């Protein structure tokens, strides 16, 4: 008994030694190769597989890029990144992040400034509009991979030109609805979630207002344009231009409605274009893209949503990560991303590429919308004030509260959050 136990323990020790030896051997071999990792949400991790392979062959024996496939949902992605960063641990060197996260991560001190790696000419190579939302308080932190902006889709078979102003949109819708050509005029994202904030931002800017002025830290929700924007959206539902169900619509629901020919206008992101042009789409070839409506004399606004790479402060392979970022965001890589996966490019060269424009004529329209891109409030506490806005808007859209009252309340609540979190009160 005694003997067998000793034999067993010596066997165990031998086994452990063996495992240790095996696991360290590749590390010794790989010591000349810099292994870097970038965390990306699942859709991007999947669509960049080929590009990453190419990068690894190009830098064979120098850099090995490892993509960590994160969750699909934007919020779960952020939770995962934050919980590891809060512990002071940096399990990845780079992070692909949504535009609204940047101020939070930058202020928390987790990001490395990119100014030493990207100069004026790099920024000049970006398409007009794509340079927005990459910096915070004067430092560049993010380099864009794909752009996304709010667009107004319209039916070319029902009208000759798209509406420019809110009242034009309403009158065209009314006319088409009374003629019985479409059951509904305009569909958009009215569910209580981030998409609603994007819709509202385009309208408050289109009415000449401002949600949040970063420089003065002041809110404009309860000022005239803020209330008018909420009122206009509420009236769309009350006058029957938008279906009541729009208050449960996110992007897919709006797309389904518009695609089946039920409505004359839709607010959505560029991905909808490819869906609407599919072979079995009932509205194929009858679609135009325009910028969102705005008051006469006011620039139209497109909410900018984009994903870009950041470098984490704790990384020990900064130069290697920059090489990977530059490779993945190059014009060639973006061409692949655009053609194969429909992601809107951020480099100017592709918008000026005549061959590409010939194959994809809507590229010029995308470029115009990107040019009018506006940012959601660039504050580290964006998530909270957006949540407050969504609640108030939802209350007003569902008729629980008058728009003026709910916007007053949103303004006051946002103010309280700013003060309590240590922001400077206006």
């Amino acid at each position, binding site marked *: 008994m005694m003997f067998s136990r000793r034999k067993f323990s010596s066997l165990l020790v031998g086994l452990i030694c063996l495992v240790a030896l095996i696991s360290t051997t590749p590390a010794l071999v790989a010591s000349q190769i810099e292994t870097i990792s970038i965390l990306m949400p699942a859709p991007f991790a999947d669509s960049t597989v080929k590009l990453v392979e190419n990068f690894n062959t190009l830098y064979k024996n120098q850099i090995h890029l490892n993509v960590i496939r994160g969750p699909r949902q934007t919020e779960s992605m952020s*939770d995962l990144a934050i919980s590891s960063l809060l512990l002071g641990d940096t399990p990845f060197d780079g992070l692909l992040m949504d535009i609204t996260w940047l101020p939070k991560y930058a202020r928390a*001190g987790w990001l490395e400034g990119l100014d030493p790696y990207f100069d004026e000419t790099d920024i000049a190579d970006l398409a007009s509009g794509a340079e927005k939302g990459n910096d915070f308080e004067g430092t560049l932190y993010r380099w864009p991979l794909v752009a996304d902006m709010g667009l107004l889709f319209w039916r070319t078979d029902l009208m000759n030109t798209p509406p420019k102003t809110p009242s034009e949109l309403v009158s065209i819708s009314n006319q088409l609805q009374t003629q019985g050509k479409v059951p509904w005029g305009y569909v958009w994202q009215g569910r209580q979630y981030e998409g609603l904030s994007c819709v509202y931002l385009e309208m408050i800017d289109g009415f000449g207002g401002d949600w949040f002025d970063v420089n003065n830290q002041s809110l404009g929700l309860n000022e005239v344009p803020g209330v008018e924007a909420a009122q206009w959206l509420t009236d769309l539902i009350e006058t029957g231009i938008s279906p009541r169900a729009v208050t449960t619509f996110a992007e897919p629901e709006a797309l389904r409605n518009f695609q089946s020919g039920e409505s004359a206008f839709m607010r959505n992101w560029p991905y909808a274009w490819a869906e609407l042009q599919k072979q079995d789409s009932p509205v194929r070839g009858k679609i135009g893209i325009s910028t969102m409506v705005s008051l006469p004399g006011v620039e139209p606004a497109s909410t900018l949503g984009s994903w870009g790479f950041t470098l984490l402060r704790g990384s020990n392979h900064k130069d290697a990560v920059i090489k990977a970022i530059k490779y993945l965001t190059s014009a060639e890589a973006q061409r692949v991303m655009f053609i194969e996966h429909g992601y809107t490019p951020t480099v100017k060269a592709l918008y000026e590429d005549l061959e590409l424009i010939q194959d994809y004529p809507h590229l010029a329209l995308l470029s115009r919308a990107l040019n009018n891109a506006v940012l959601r409030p660039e504050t580290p506490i964006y998530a909270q004030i957006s949540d407050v806005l969504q609640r108030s808007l939802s209350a007003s859209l569902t008729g629980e509260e008058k728009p003026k009252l709910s916007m007053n309340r949103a303004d006051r609540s946002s103010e309280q959050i700013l003060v309590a979190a240590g922001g400077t009160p206006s």
Partner: protein
Amino acid sequence: MILIALLLPSIIFLGIVFGFPLLSYLWLSLHANSVLTSFRSIFNGWANWNRFIHDYRYWQDFLQTIRFSVASVGIELLLGLIIALILHRPMKFRGWIRSSSLIPWALPTTVMALGWRWIFNSPFGPIDQFTTALGAQSLNILGNPSTAWIATVYSDVWKTTPFVALILLAGLQSIPADLYEACRLEGASASSCFRRITLPLLMPYIGLAAMFRLAQAFGVFDLIQVMTGGGPASSTESIALYAYLNALRFLDFGYGATIIIGSFILLSILVASCWFFVHLFNRKRSIMITK
């Protein structure tokens, strides 16, 4: 003197485990400590509390948490009692049946919550498959604010009823058998034996199970986080989830601490008033009996 000396170790232990965190949260709730202050604590007086009082998201979550707790604990007590009474009866393979009835409780919450999320999933879950096969509409249970919370209650009941049944079974076994014998000899019916003997003697156990379960249900986090993430439209969000969001998603530790202290105070008031009413009820009843 000796009494205090003997109690001292446990008092110190409780002080470290409960007192210290509560006091530090209280301190933190009077400060701004967020990503805006670069995680430094800056005294801001009552700003967090002012926000807390006017925070309708918190009050909605508070009511939702109470709704969840009362509904799930109420159903668990009722079902647990029935199951305990069944398991208490002599039958074949009683040991096997008793232990296998504990399986749901033994599963990790995350695992079972994920399972239920798939069962309730629309359109791929079996429930939706069943209703659409019958030609009915997809129920979209987790996507509808008025049904999602019921699904969370259902899952909680499924998981923790065995725990309640176990405690009540222990209670049933502590009731002396000769009491029932006497009851039968007096010619009382089975239902009056249950009302006059089983229920009153089981009361302390029911109270114990209710207290354990309520304390757990008020702090529900993992079940909700996995099943719905607090959605749709925050209709299943609990207090614990909101505190977590503030600290870890919004990086606002000052306000996160305020939520925890505020909820602690509110729950203390709630428990104290419950205790007061139970006490009042018991006194009234004992007066009635002596009369």
